[in-house]
């Protein structure tokens, strides 16, 4: 557990000092939102409410892919990846630390992107904000779990920029489906029901446990 905290602190500290991931993800999200805005310039408010969840989640997923691609970038320099592989104990803790750090970063970026989105698309933020935030936080558990595992696998490949999205996106389809359905409900003002959250909880749980256990095999040589 100590190891997880150490990794969490290390990742957040290095991110704070270099800010490369957070800047890349944030800029990318803003750009996508702007592109969407120009793709549908004259939307009526009812149309916006219909399309908003989809646009938001497309933005979130692609920004997450960008961020996850760099999960192990600090480990690549100086071969620090080997240092992680050499660590004793259950390597699942390393996974936990890494995935949590990414969760923090992605959630922060998504919060900012959500604000920009509400601004540009003139969406009323007071409707269903807490519900939407819960959905986002939950979906991110699934995204960060499977993303961290796959990032560790693709980081040593020459083709890592292509490989990660190809591996990751099929696994994110169920998350996306559940998240968009949930967000559609919250944005329309419905109260957040457990049945809406249930798919995300199940997927998040399955992905987290599976990836925690499988991570050990990724670090071997």
């Amino acid at each position: 557990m100590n190891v997880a905290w150490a990794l969490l602190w290390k990742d957040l500290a290095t991110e704070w000092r270099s800010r490369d991931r957070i800047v890349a993800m944030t800029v990318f999200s803003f750009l996508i939102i702007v592109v969407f805005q120009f793709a549908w310039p004259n939307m009526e408010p009812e149309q916006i409410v219909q399309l908003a969840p989809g646009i938001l989640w497309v933005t979130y997923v692609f920004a997450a892919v960008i961020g996850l691609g760099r999960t192990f970038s600090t480990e690549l320099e100086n071969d620090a990846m080997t240092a992680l592989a050499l660590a004793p104990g259950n390597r699942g803790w390393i996974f936990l630390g890494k995935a949590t750090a990414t969760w923090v970063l992605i959630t922060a970026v998504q919060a900012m992107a959500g604000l920009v989105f509400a601004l540009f698309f003139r969406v009323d933020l007071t409707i269903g904000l807490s519900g939407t935030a819960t959905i986002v936080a939950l979906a991110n558990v699934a995204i960060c779990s499977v993303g961290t595992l796959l990032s560790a696998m693709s980081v040593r490949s020459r083709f890592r920029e292509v490989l990660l999205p190809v591996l990751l996106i099929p696994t994110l389809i169920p998350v996306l489906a559940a998240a968009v359905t949930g967000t559609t409900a919250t944005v329309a003002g419905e109260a957040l029901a457990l049945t809406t959250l249930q798919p995300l909880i199940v997927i998040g749980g399955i992905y987290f446990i599976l990836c925690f256990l499988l991570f050990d095999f990724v670090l071997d040589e």
Partner: protein
Amino acid sequence: MTNSSSSASPTPATSSSPSGSDRLGLTLKLLGWAILGLLPLYAWTVSTAPIDSVQGMMQKILYVHPPLAYGAYLGFVATAIAGGLFLWQGREVHDQLAIAGAEVGTLFCTLMLITGPIWARGAWGPGNWWVWDARLTLTLLLWFVYLAYMLLRSFTEGDERAARFSSIYGILGVVLIPLNYWIIDLVGGAMHPDNLEFEEESSSLGVGMGLPFFVGNLTLFFVFIYLLVLRWRVGMLRTEAERAEFDSRRI
């Protein structure tokens, strides 16, 4: 590539006990005979099946498209199980099965995605080459997982690492199958309003369609197993040959 001139015998891959590929070869012979018998039966039952009044000849895709599912889905299940065994024991034979499952599975999955639209067009009329019906959607998602699996194998450096990583992805991917099924069931209706549910074929089969459907399922199932074992055997032969060649090489 020739061995050195002196008689360096390969290590006991060709000793008295049957090698992996020998055992597979026997299985293949048995399967081959079964298929030889089934294929003409298949062709005959399909051709003599009644022609649907509404859809015409196109309807006969019913005897091809759903049976392909065995190959498409069981292929990945084989890959995942073999991958799990490989992670546990590290034996190459399991990895070879995983590769076989992936390659043959991709073939069947691709065929499903080709015959699916043909059937859709026939069943729902012009303009309906693609429908977001539950099974077709699920198969499309599976196809992307196959593609990802293959790319992961190709793009990972190091044979053993590639085997290990694909085993991991195989396990992830196989979990996706029931997960997607569940999610499509749960929220699919909201996403694609014309979403057709997972139908039970047998309930929609008319008179005289039961037999060709059954034979079709049986035949394509055997064809899948045959191709799987065949590809597995090829992989095993190659592994054994490489090993023998390496061992016999003098320094």
